[in-house]
């Protein structure tokens, strides 16, 4: 187990280094000057030089990358002062420390992810199970059609439409916004309810389909037939036996989805104007804010890579036949 973890973590570190390096070099592949952008319209050459130096972009690109990399582990000294490890630098735009900006935005993304995950796991797996238990009957057909329709929905359309219907017309729901959980749990819940439901539509559709096909496959296995033949109650066969076997692929996809969502649900956050990591990353791109872009890319990629490892490890617990090698 520990050897597996060590190997995978090393692999993850390599992937993260490659991704951040690609981001770095691609940023400078574009002939643009963030210093000019930050300096403003009227900018004397001396000031521009100074700004460039303060930003640290007067060095060769690979040296900049090296400093950035070192900064994460050892901290860095800037003209504005010392930046302690883990140091991701300062924003080109408003000189905010990147690490603080991300920490500041993370609760929004985390709330959005967790709430949506609860909704889509509950509905997706539930509907998939019902469909598998009632194969070929109306319940199955309804669940299957619903999942096909759900998979074709677009967050940026359904989200706005749902807000219009539920908030503006019927006035049933609160307008989507993020309130801190610790400050006001009720507002936190009601403000995020529409984003959760909308974000989980597509996922629910996917999980319904996957759960159904995975369960159907397990139900046709010999061990299920044996259990049924010896007179085991069908509820036990269904939930204890078949579900256990069907869980594997669902957990895999769940890990991947969770990782992707934690890196910022860009479209959802943009649609509902929630200030999470995703919204931060769009801003970083639009403002040509390299340190910010690197920061969010690192967070997003780390989430994806880490959850991949977690999933593989979890897999071994669920299914002891899988060896971690």
């Amino acid at each position, binding site marked *: 187990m520990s050897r597996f973890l060590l190997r995978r973590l090393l692999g993850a570190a390599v992937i993260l280094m490659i*991704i951040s390096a690609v981001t770095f070099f691609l940023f400078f592949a574009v*002939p643009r000057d963030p210093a000019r952008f930050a300096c403003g319209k009227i900018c004397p050459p001396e000031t521009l030089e100074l700004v460039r130096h303060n930003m640290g972009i007067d060095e060769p690109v690979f040296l900049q990358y090296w400093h950035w990399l070192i900064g994460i582990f050892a901290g860095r000294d800037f003209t504005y002062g010392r930046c302690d490890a883990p140091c991701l630098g300062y924003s080109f735009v408003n000189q905010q420390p990147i690490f603080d900006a991300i920490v500041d935005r993370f609760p929004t993304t985390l709330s959005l992810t967790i709430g949506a995950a609860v909704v889509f796991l509950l509905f997706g797996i539930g509907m998939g199970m019902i469909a598998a238990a009632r194969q070929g009957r109306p319940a199955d057909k309804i669940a299957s059609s619903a999942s096909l329709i759900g998979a074709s929905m677009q967050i*940026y359309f359904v989200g*706005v439409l749902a807000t219009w219907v539920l908030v503006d017309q019927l006035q049933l729901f609160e307008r989507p916004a993020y309130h801190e959980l610790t400050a006001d749990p009720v507002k936190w819940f009601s403000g995020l309810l529409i984003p959760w439901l909308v974000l989980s539509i597509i996922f629910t559709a996917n999980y319904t389909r996957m759960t159904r096909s995975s369960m159907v496959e397990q139900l046709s296995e010999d061990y299920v037939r044996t259990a049924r033949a010896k007179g085991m109650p069908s509820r036990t066969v269904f939930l204890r036996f078949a579900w256990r076997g069907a869980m594997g692929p669902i957990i895999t996809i769940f890990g991947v989805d969770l990782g992707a969502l934690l890196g*910022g649900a*860009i*479209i959802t956050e943009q649609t509902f104007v929630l200030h999470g990591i995703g919204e931060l*990353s769009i801003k970083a791109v639009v403002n040509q804010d390299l340190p910010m872009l690197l920061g969010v890319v690192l967070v997003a*990629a780390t989430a994806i890579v880490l959850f991949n490892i977690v999933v593989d490890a979890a897999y071994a617990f669920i299914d002891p036949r899988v060896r971690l090698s």
Partner: protein
Amino acid sequence: MTMPAPAAPDLTGVAATAAAPETAGRSPGQLTWLRFRRDRTGVISACIVLFFLLTAICAPLISLVYGNDPYTRYGQERPGLLNEYGWPVLPNGGISGEFWFGLEPGLGRDVFMMLIYGIRTSLLIAAAATVLTTVIGVVVGLTAGYAGGKTDYLVGRVIDILLSFPSTLFFIAFMPVVESIFVSAQEETPIWLRAASLITVLTLFGWATIARLLRGQVLSLREREFVEAARVTGASPARIIFKELLPNLWTPIIIQSTLLLPLFVTSEAALSFLGVGIIEPTPDWGRMIQRGAEVYREDITFLIFPGMAIVIFVLAFNLLGDSLRDALDPKTRR
């Protein structure tokens, strides 16, 4: 749903020609067509997709008959169509006999025409990206799977890394990069270049999935006797890959690419929605939805038309992909 013809041939294996005796004389293609024809959902969705395709092709003709075009700002040119705040005077977004789907708030363009020309933008970009992605994915996946060893290892790692990229974020971050490869920053970006950049970005992150899938299939196929036989007769690796392996993989390739196209349509619309896709004045669904999301509290109709259009199109395509899979490969029937 009806069951397909009995004893369907194994399309993934070599036994494709060994049709069952009852259906003797029918090629696998005919069998697929037979199975597909019986699937009502599939036929209906195919009709809807065809309808969209035809509309896109005939867009200039429709514009001629209908009398409006997607670029003229009718609302600004003619008084009485938009009020002083830029909202359509008539109810429901200004729907009338002349402007079937109403007018765009502010600029006052014809929504019906923007929608129809928008199909062209979406389909062109999505189709080009699908073709490129499929070709690259097939070539890389097949080569890596057949070659094995170091090539396979290298390709496998590249795929792993590509799939670890936060893709939406990179779509956004890459657009200016790809564009700057073609034009210098000062120049105005022509629209075809914008489209080319979109296609490049979509392809760049799209091929890995299909390559990985096909690589897995090749791994099991290459141990089969017919490959060995080909190798013994002295066939070159290229011949084995494209003449022996590829014909056995058409089913997954077709299924994957029919599912890729709607995915690219939505990705393109999402990028335009986020403001990094197709720019004015080229009509585009994603950008229409973006504008619709800005004005939805005053004029919901402008959001509903492009939104419904994209939902119907994607749904039809997804259903078509599903039916195609059932028809091509009855073994994986749900």
